[in-house]
């Protein structure tokens, strides 16, 4: 409805315009063509039809034109409601129905004609002065009460036509008069004029935008007077100016300026593109060397990494993030992320969107290429297997202890120290429960238990096979025990040794150390001698010959830290005059008269004959715990509380030849085997590590150190694991005592 209405209004407007044009032309031409009014010819306005159709057409046309009249008015200042009304009117105006409507229409018309007259005043312009009526450009309704309508050129009144047409007449005319469509009302004279055929044709031409004159040829050839052709005769007769003969000064100035600029090279002639070879040509035709590649320091940019499965638009499901992974990814800083994007899955290719960070990534690559400092990093592709040193197989280095075969039980406290008799038949152990136990090695039977009345710190069996003696350190006393666990001859020789001492005793002056014989019950237990020290003794150790005994009393402040006792003469002496640090352990050289003193950081070697220090070994560890000397006497191992074991080659250097960091916790004890090339270390982590350590007689060949076995078995109690370790004198067996109150034999 809306659309149709708008269309109809548009057509109405067109028609209205048409009418206006018609009126104007009428005004112009009416003067000349008044005489030809009577002529009648039937022709339809826009199209040629047959006569029968004409009638109906005319009617439609008429009704339309009526419509157009008031619709045009309505257009100027009305709302769409009226339009609709009109629409209805026009719609209903079929040729059959108009009888009913006529009266309504007439009423409307009456009101609308007045408006029409009001309106007309505007559109008239004084340019087109109509000279038939001299009243001028005034509203004609002023004359409506007069019989005349104005004055002609001669001053005579122009009378209105005699019978004024009323609406009914008008309507009848419309219905009956075939020329009604070409009849125009002349306001100036008040008469109706019927347009002639020529006039209608003219109107049609003007409407089409053509020239009014039929004979006018708009495509006449144009004659150009002022053309580039030089003509024979001047177009004008005007004599030439003087300036046309004289060269222009201003121009000269300008030209000279340009010439100067060109001369100076300020202005360059227009550049011509040198495209002889084309935009592209074979650039590398002659040679293929690049300067940058020759450059020694040139580092080509690393290639961008190629995408993996995660980047696929349809990755395998395991590459997609789970919720936690996603949350983690979002939390992480952009630089910490493993992937710079979140893997996504699309069910089909058409759903894949543009990657939002595409430009960023390209840009970052560009930045990397020209802003990022480059450095050559040597990356060695190491096979980790190659890093593992090639060592002889442990199998080839047998014999060494491999399995735990016996456990000696009986102690109730932690077993601090163990010692094997030189024959290898007996094992003595000292424990915190105040007992010293003697075990038969092969049967694990406890042969004797000696109550010493205090925690045993250290225990050492006399290495001389001809005597059967044991030194025990208990608090500040060193006890000499004679367990009489040997054949008769040995026991006798032991007694002889001890009795020989008694004679010498009287001659000894009183010092810090006092020797005394045991009496009563102690004697019955086998304790024969007591050596009273000023402080608590931590370690006792025998000289290889079995006559000398060294004891250690660690103390910061005093020089009385080490004593060397001679059992046969019951003599003691303090070899050091000065305190050189906290003494941890001491040891005799197995062959030569050397004495090893292990302090906190270093090991000092003293020559006992010359009474001087020969060497000081730097252990490179924080706190030495234990020390053992190779039976050859040229090598020393030190265990320390900072988990290290250092092997010194005395001929080589004062620095360790090798540092072994095998243990996880403090090394408590170290030991050499007397015969086999074996050494062992015991640690708080509950393990005993047995290493093969061949020492060559050739000085140029370094000792070969190969760990061969890790022995486990001790239970860690109170953060203490294995406390002491010692080898069997003849067999490749090893004993270890632990904080779990057991002693274990590994064979």
């Amino acid at each position, binding site marked *: 409805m809306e659309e149709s209405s708008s269309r109809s209004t548009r057509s109405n407007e067109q028609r209205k315009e048409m009418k206006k044009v018609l009126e104007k032309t009428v005004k112009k031409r009416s003067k000349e063509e008044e005489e030809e009014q009577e002529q009648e010819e039937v022709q339809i306005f826009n199209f040629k039809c047959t006569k029968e159709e004409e009638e109906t057409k005319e009617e439609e046309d008429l009704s339309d034109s009526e419509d157009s009249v008031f619709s045009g008015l309505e257009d100027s200042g009305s709302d769409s409601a009226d339009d609709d009304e009109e629409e209805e009117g026009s719609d209903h105006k079929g040729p059959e129905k108009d009888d009913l409507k006529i009266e309504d229409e007439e009423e409307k018309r009456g009101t609308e004609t007045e408006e029409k007259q009001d309106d007309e005043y505007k559109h008239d312009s004084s340019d087109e002065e109509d000279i038939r009526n001299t009243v001028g450009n005034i509203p004609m309704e002023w004359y409506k009460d007069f019989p005349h309508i104005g004055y002609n050129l001669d001053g005579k009144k122009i009378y209105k036509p005699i019978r004024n047409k009323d609406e009914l007449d008008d309507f009848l005319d419309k219905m009956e008069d075939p020329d009604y469509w070409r009849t125009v009302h002349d306001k100036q004279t008040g008469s109706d004029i019927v347009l002639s055929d020529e006039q209608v044709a003219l109107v049609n031409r003007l409407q089409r935008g053509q020239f009014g004159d039929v004979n006018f040829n708009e495509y006449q050839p144009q004659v150009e007077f002022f053309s580039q052709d030089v003509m024979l005769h001047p177009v004008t007769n005007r004599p030439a100016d003087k300036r046309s003969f004289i060269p222009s000064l201003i121009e000269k100035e300008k030209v000279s300026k340009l010439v100067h600029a060109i001369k100076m090279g300020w202005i360059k002639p227009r550049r011509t593109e040198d495209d002889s070879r084309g935009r*592209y040509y*074979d*650039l*590398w035709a002659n040679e293929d060397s*690049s300067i*940058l590649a020759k450059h020694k*320091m040139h580092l080509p*940019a690393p290639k*961008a990494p*190629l*995408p*993996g*499965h995660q*980047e*696929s*638009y*349809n*990755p*395998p499901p*395991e*590459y997609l993030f*789970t919720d936690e992974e996603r949350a983690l990814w979002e939390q992480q800083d952009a630089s910490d992320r493993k992937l710079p*994007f979140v893997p996504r899955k*699309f069910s*089909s*290719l*058409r759903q*894949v*969107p*543009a*990657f*939002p960070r*595409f*430009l960023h990534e*390209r*840009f970052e*690559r*560009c930045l990397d*290429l*020209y*802003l*990022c*400092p*480059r*450095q050559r990093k040597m990356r060695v592709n*190491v096979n*980790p297997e190659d890093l*593992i*040193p*090639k*060592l002889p*197989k*442990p199998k080839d280095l047998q014999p060494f202890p491999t399995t735990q075969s016996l*456990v000696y*039980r009986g102690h109730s406290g932690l077993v601090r120290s163990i010692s094997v008799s030189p024959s290898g038949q007996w094992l003595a152990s000292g424990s915190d429960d105040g007992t010293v136990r003697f075990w038969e090695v092969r049967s694990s039977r406890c042969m004797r238990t000696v109550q010493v009345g205090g925690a045993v710190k250290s225990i050492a069996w006399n290495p001389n096979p001809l005597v059967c003696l044991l030194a025990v350190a208990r608090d500040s006393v060193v006890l000499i025990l004679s367990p009489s666990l040997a054949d008769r001859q040995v026991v006798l020789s032991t007694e002889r040794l001890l009795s020989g001492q008694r004679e010498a005793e009287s001659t000894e002056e009183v010092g810090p150390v006092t020797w005394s014989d045991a009496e009563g019950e102690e004697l019955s237990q086998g304790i024969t001698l007591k050596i009273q020290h000023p402080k608590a003794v931590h370690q006792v150790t025998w000289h290889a010959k079995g006559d000398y005994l060294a004891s250690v009393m660690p103390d910061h402040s005093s020089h009385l830290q080490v004593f060397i006792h001679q059992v046969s003469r019951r003599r003691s002496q303090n070899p050091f005059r000065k305190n050189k640090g906290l003494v941890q352990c001491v040891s005799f050289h197995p062959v030569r008269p050397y004495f090893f003193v292990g302090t906190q950081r270093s090991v000092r070697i003293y020559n006992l004959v010359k009474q001087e220090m020969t060497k000081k070994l730097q252990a490179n560890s924080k706190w030495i715990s234990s020390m053992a000397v190779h039976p050859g006497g040229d090598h020393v191992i030190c265990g320390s509380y900072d988990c290290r074991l250092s092997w010194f080659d005395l001929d080589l250097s004062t620095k360790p030849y090798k540092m*072994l960091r*095998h243990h996880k916790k403090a090394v408590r004890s170290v030991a050499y085997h007397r015969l086999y090339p074996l050494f062992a270390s015991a640690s708080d982590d509950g393990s005993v590590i047995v290493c093969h350590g061949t020492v060559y007689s050739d000085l140029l060949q370094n000792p070969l150190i190969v*760990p061969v076995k*890790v022995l486990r078995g001790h239970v860690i109690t109170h953060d203490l694991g294995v406390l002491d370790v010692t080898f069997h004198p003849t067999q490749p067996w090893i004993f270890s005592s632990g904080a779990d109150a*057991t002693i274990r034999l590994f064979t």
Partner: protein
Amino acid sequence: MGGLQKKKYERGSVTNYITRNKARKKLQLSLPDFRRLCILKGIYPHEPKHKKKVNKGSTAPRTFYLLKDIRFLLHEPIVGKFRDYKVFVRKLKKAYGKTEWTAVERLKENKPAYKLDHIVKESCVLTAVPFCGKCHVETIQLCRRLTVEWMNYVIASRSLRKVFISIKGIYYQAEVMGQLTTWLVPYQFSHDHPTDVDYRVMATFTELYTTLLGFINFRLYHSLNLLYPPKLDIKAESELKEEGDDDDYAMNSECYLEKLSALSTSLARVVSTAEDEEAQLDKFPVEEEDLEKMEAREMEQKQLEAHKKLFEGLKFFLNREVPRESLAFLIRCFGGEVSWDKSVCIGSAYEVTDETITHQIVDRPNIDKQYINRYYIQPQWVYDCVNAKILLPVEDYFLGVTLPPHLSPFVEEKEGDYVPPEKLKIMALQRGEKPAHEEEEEEEEEEEDDDEEEEEEDDEVEEKNLKKLEEQRSQGKSLSVKVTAGKVKVNNPARMEQDEKAEEKRLAIMMMKKKEKYLYDKIMFGKKRKIRETNKLTAKRKAHDDAEKSKKKTRK
């Protein structure tokens, strides 16, 4: 001691380096110009080995360039051009200010321009990775043309090897003159232009790369006896003209590029040669050792030839919703025939109704009118086939079917890496094995797993027993003396040997030097991490598969 006093920082590595600011001053360039020069000439900062020494004792963060590089720049003619341009801008400004329009025009006509030919000649071709990130400047047209030319070359030489659809775009890898070249083409959508990207830098790079690519294209086309700038084969072109009116699509000038980018016609050759002159390896009399190598090489050659002819004899039709350019490029690279709807692009060879079409590539859930004698497949099939180097079974890629995962062809799994099961399947297909029934396989796998677990359990039980015994022994007294029948402990010799070896290794590791131990630990850590990741992926996959299975069951 006589002689001059040695001054610090006057010899040694400090003399080889120059800071950025000093370099800039030496070249008398502004920072943007300096940067542009660096981009064009491929000069980059170096990280000195001892930064503090080079930085004259200071630890301030500075970028260092090699002094030699900067000296090299000093003789660069393009530096002069930069200065010219600066002068030009100044003059132009002045002319504008004075409203001397003729001068402005004159200056504009003589705007200094530079050519990058000599720079390209210097730079090493092979290091530059072409990238098709399109910049939004006037050069887009040029970029497009070069890309299309490049693609046409790849088609003509059949050198495409791998392709991968990622979420960022489509990666292609081609083997050009024995060099693997990878490039990425983004999806054909408008990209939003982020503000934190310096487009001037990108433009400079584009400038360099367009020049470079132009020359490379020229060279490559000539190596194939093709005309450059490329011309379409006249025969084919005339056919094209007969078929469709070009005027429908574009102006004549634009038409050329359009037709070229349609990738549907072969290119004109300088010398019309026989179609495929197969480069046969000459057979030299070789020693026996090399014989195997030769054979292997021949096998490889054969495989390559087969790969190049992957789609030969197949006729494809692209529906309008699939990415036409990528697929047409791919299919033509491997010898297939391809066409598309006339309205999509110029250069379609045949209609949908053609009876000889073997595959129609469709990316929608279903299609109304289906022809019986062709497969309707999803586009991923083409990509997967190219990567697998065989024609994969089409069943998995029918319309509406859930696609199998698309795997990256660039990942080469080493030992111990995680291999997705799909890849294993494809590898089996490549070996020519028939795909076994899936479920059976799975069951077998499960069984194997179970076995392993049982073994582990056995070990644990044994250890527990041992421990118990130990405890009992240690509490010797409370133990009621009783002789129980001992179990015969079967010594597995293989296992013993293994244990022995493991222990040997452990002991040897103990003897490592500190440095080596550190390195070894690091390597082992990396390995362990890898294993952990692999295990994680496997577990994830298994969980996913189980979930799928249970879902299936419930559905049944």
